[in-house]
Every structure is written in C-alpha cells, then in structure tokens.
C-alpha cells in the first residue's frame, strides 16, 4: 500500500493506527463472512427450513402463537416457546396430563378423529404400510375452494417439517402449505383425490406435535374467530356470524375481503 507513495514516512504511530484500523475492518468483514458461511451451510445441511420457520414463527402475532394446551383449556394462557414443535417441549407431558375441556362442535366442518392436524391446516393419517397421507383440512378447503394451480413436489423429494409441502395458487394469491412433518414423497394426489401427498417417514414416526381429539374443536373456533375478524370487510358483512356452515370456496364468494391477511394467518405466514 504505502511503499511507492512519495514522501510517505512510516512511523510507530502508523503501525499502531493502521493495525487498529485493519483489525476493525477485518472484524466487520469476518462477521459478515461468518454469517454468510453459516447461512450457506444451513441451506446445504437442510436446517434452513427449521430456522426459517423459527424466524417466521417469532414474527407471528401472539394470538397465533398460543400453546395447544391453552386452546384445549388445560392452561389459562401460554405462548408456545417451541414454534409448535411439541416433540422438544419439556412441559408437554405435564400439561397433556391435565383434563381438557371436551368441546366437539366442529361447526359442521369435517374433522375426523383418526386424523392428526397441523396448525398450518394440514392433516396426517398414518397408513398400514408405514407411509403417511397428508391432506388439506376442511377449513382450509372451504377457504380455498378448488385452487387454480397446484404445485406438488415430484416423487422422491425430501420435505421438512414446517417447510413447504406444496404450493397452491388462487385468485393471484400464492399459498404455501407447511409440511406437518418430515418425509420423502412417494406419491402425489390432489383435491379430487382428497389427499395431496403420501410421505415415507424416516425412522419412527412421532406425531406428538400435531393436534388431535379434543384440541381440534377449540382450535377451529379460534381460527374461525380470527378469520371472522380478518374477513369482515364492510361490504361483505359478518360472514360467519351465524356460526353456521361455512360456504365452500369463500375466496370466490367474497373476493374483496382481505385474503392476504386471512391466508397468511391460516397457513402460518408472518
């Protein structure tokens, strides 16, 4: 650098000064670089989905981060600290033991008990051959109606829990459906088949983190309440006020409503 600059004379001050300066610069660049490198390794190592979900979860409004046990009435108020992954939750056991308020009114929506429900409105049913069926639940189905476009991953794709399971397009909205759990796609279906993906899990299947039984109805109630608020545009008027049966294909039924928010809330987008 300095050699070759006419009239420049090195001094002790220069050494100190410049070394301090370059240390600082290197630290800054180092920070940036390490962040970039770790990001890259995460992307490669398949940790990306998890991290991304955790980040996104943190951005969700608190009303959508409630613990399943609060929904089930086992605890007065609790924020989920684990991004809805009860498999690593320490308190899970303690709360799960408590009695749940047994509410069964699914408001005429079809929520069979043999299914496990993900907070992103997908359901999972284990098959006898060890594979898992994954589908879109009834509420989501009512909202979306029949999508314009469906992009299901090709067979053999590894999908990660809370990562993207498949994508749908409807009235210009892109809907990302979160995967309820990890696995490799062995078969793909669609709305008319009633299911979307058949996954082959790796190792033992732990469905603890999915809602089931008594937890479903209260959760639904919350979801509908949220939708009610978000969809209540002045023109449409109270859509679900009667608490009766939802019309199918609500996105078509009331296009002027704030679907952006509604869908994001439904499919756990920040």
């Amino acid at each position, binding site marked *: 650098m300095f050699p070759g600059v006419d009239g420049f004379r090195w001094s002790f001050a220069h050494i100190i000064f410049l070394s301090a300066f370059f240390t600082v610069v290197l630290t800054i660049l180092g*920070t940036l670089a390490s962040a970039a490198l770790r990001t890259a390794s995460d992307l490669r190592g398949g940790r990306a989905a998890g991290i991304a979900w955790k980040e996104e979860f943190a951005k969700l409004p608190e009303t959508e981060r409630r613990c399943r046990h609060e929904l089930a009435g086992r605890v007065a108020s609790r924020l989920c600290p684990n991004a809805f992954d009860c498999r690593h939750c320490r308190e899970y056991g303690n709360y799960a033991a408590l009695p749940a308020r047994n509410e069964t009114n699914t408001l005429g929506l079809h929520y069979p008990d043999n299914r496990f429900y993900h907070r992103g409105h997908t359901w999972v049913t284990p098959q006898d051959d060890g594979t898992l069926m994954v589908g879109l639940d009834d509420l989501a189905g009512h909202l979306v109606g029949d999508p314009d476009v469906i992009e299901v991953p090709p067979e053999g794709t590894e999908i990660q829990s809370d990562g993207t399971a498949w994508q749908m397009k409807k009235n210009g909205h892109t809907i990302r459906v979160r995967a309820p759990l990890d696995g490799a796609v062995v078969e793909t279906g669609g709305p008319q088949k009633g299911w979307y993906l058949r996954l082959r899990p790796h190792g033992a299947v732990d469905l603890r983190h999915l809602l089931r039984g008594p937890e479903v109805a209260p959760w639904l109630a919350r979801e509908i309440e949220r939708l009610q608020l978000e969809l209540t545009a002045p023109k449409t008027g109270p859509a679900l006020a009667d608490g009766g049966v939802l019309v199918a294909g609500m996105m078509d039924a009331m296009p002027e409503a704030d679907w952006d928010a509604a869908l994001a809330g439904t499919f756990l987008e920040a």
Partner: protein
Amino acid sequence: MASAVLTDRRWIARGAERTSSARFALWLAPWAALLVLGIYAAGLCLYYGLNQTNMDNRFAFGLWIFLDLSVIALGAGAFFTGFLVYILGRADLKPILNAAVVLGFICYSGAVAVLMVDVGQPLRGWFTFWHPNTHSMLTEVTFCISCYLLVLTLEYIPVLLRNRQLGKGQPAAVFEYRLHHLVPVLAGLGAFLSFFHQGSLGGLYGVLRGRPFAFREGFSVWPSTFFLFVLSAIAVGPSFLMLVTAAVEKLTGRRQVPRELLRRLGFISGILLAVYVAAKSIDTLIWLNVTSPSVGFAPWEHYAYPPFGSALLFIEIVLFGLVPAGLLIYPRTARNRRWLLTGAALACCGILLNRFVMTVQTLALPTLAFDEFLSYIPSWQEVATFGGLIAYGVIVFSLSYRYLPLFGQEKREATDVSGR
C-alpha cells in the same frame, strides 16, 4: 382502520396498523420534494465547485460542518443504546434498539454524504487511507466514521430482513437469523468506534493551537474537547431517541414503547448530562484562566464580539445544560411527559449550540491584531443541501417505521387492537 386502502399491505407486518398508502404518500411528498431540491443543490456544488457556497478563506468551514457535527452527536443514541443493551446487558432498552439503529444509520450516512459534497475533491476521499497522517484528528474521524457506517449498515440489514416480504424465502430468513446472532459483536465494535470518533470530532477543534478560542490542553494526544464531545454525545443521544419516539407516537397517535422506557432513557440522559455540564464548566474555567491567557488572549476577548457574547456561554451551560439535566432526573418532572420531553429538547438544543459555537464562533473571531471579526450567511445551496439531509432522514425513518418492526412493543399492542 380496516377500511383504509392499503395497496402495500403485503409489505406491512401483519397485525401492524398503518395509515393508508395515500395518506402515507401525501406525508412523503413534501419531504421527497425537499430531498430532490437538496440533491440538486449538492449537484451544483459538485459540478461548479464550492464557489456555490458562501464559505470563504476565513470561513473555510460553514453550515455543513456544523450540521455534520450536530447530526453525528445526535446519532450517538444508536451506539450508546447498543452499548447499554449488549455490553451492559440492559435488556429493558431492547424495544427501542431497532429504532436507535435506524436513527444512527440515517445520521451517519447523511453526514458522510454531506461531507463528500463539502470537500473540494471528493474523488480524492480515499487519499486519507492511502497516506494517512496519524497526528490528524480528521484521520481518526475519517477512519472511525467510515468503519462505523459499515457497522451500522450491517446492523441495519437484519432489521430490513424482518420485513414481511424481504424476509421471505429461506436464505433471507436464515441469513437474518445468523447475522442477528452476531450483532452483539458489531454493537461492541460500534461502541468502540463511536466513542473514538465522537471524541476525535471534538479533538478536531481542541487541537487548533492557532485558534485560542478552540484550543484546549488535554490528556496525552487528546485535548479535553475530545472527552467533552464523547460525554455530550452519549448524554444527548438518548434524549434525541426519546424525542423521535415521542414524535412518532404523536404522528401515529399510538403508543410505541412503554412509558417507563422513555423515562429510563431520560434518566440516563439526565445523569450523563449533569456529568457533562460539570466537566464542561471545569474545562471552561481552566481554558479561560490558564490556556487562553497563556497565549496572550484575554479571556473576555472571545466574547467581545456580539452576537457572540458571554450570554451564549451561560445559555449553553445553564439553560441547555443544568436545566434539562434537572428536568430529566428529578422524578416529579420526569414523570410528567411534557416536562420530560422539554428536558430532552433542551438537551438537544444544548448540543446544537455547543457544536455551533465550536464551528462558527471559532472561525468568526479574529486572531491577528489587525484581523476583523467576520460573519457569514450560508448560500441557498448550502441550506438546501442541509434540508435535503433532513428530508432524507425523515423519509428513511418513515419507510422504516412503516415496513419494519422498529419498536419491539408495537406488535403486542397491534394484536391487542385486532383482538378487541
């Protein structure tokens, strides 16, 4: 406000309540106009040279340097809050951290931009890194500010990535996550850098042996102004942060941070201000009675030229120093929002006045026996550039507020609202 039309809804955090796009545009429009004017004026100065300004050989520094010094001092809130949160672990200040970072970024980037217009040969800016003079305070300033601006940018990125759209997609999200985890390092670095250049900005004038009004004795290589500037900056930074927050709350009509947070900021500000005033008074006494007379300048000479009377000194130390310190510390006034903000405002005025006196009065006063006392009125180009900087700040902050989570508290309140 569900009825409000939000064409940019998809960019705004869900649940966060923002005014309609139209009203927002309306709010931005005048600022944008001012910014354009500022850029035009700066362009004139760059194209035709600094003869567009009213600076001259005696007033070699003018409005811009005053502006830069003030803005950077006010921007000190950024590094100081970061310092308190990450280094001293004051987690209670976290909700305001993002706002502080954005504010700091605005102040520093703006100041650097104006500096680039202010120098006669911007293309040679890098010469300082090429053959630095390590004895020059300005070298210190250049190095630290350029580094710290880099730091602020890095600190700003995670905040940016918290935006609903920018943060979409796994890479962005993961990068944000990773960077966020490293921010403490940056904060530490930032604190180190800022402490230094805030000081060296003070040293800038303290070392002017040829200007007895500014010259100060000091410790080792640093004149006393070095330390006074650091103190005043970290004292007033939080106050400014407070004012800005209050302004945002007034404009949006919604509470952004808990009351007690503002009061806590005020308290910190007040204590530091008190210390600063004490130090400043001692320094002034030493300067008036020892430093200045020793080179043949009678103390009162410096205040013999109206409007730069000794009243100015009184205002700076008492009205803009002691009084706000009292207002910010004394519980009864501090509990009253109006008094609290008044205190903060006074403190900010104090630092403005101090920087003004340092930059302008120093040059206006004669040194040679046959010198005249000079005055200087900035040209419209200078003022417009100044305005442009302010507009830039307002615009960036408005955008950041609209699309980024500046105030940690806000989301809960937003959801409360929607939950009602």
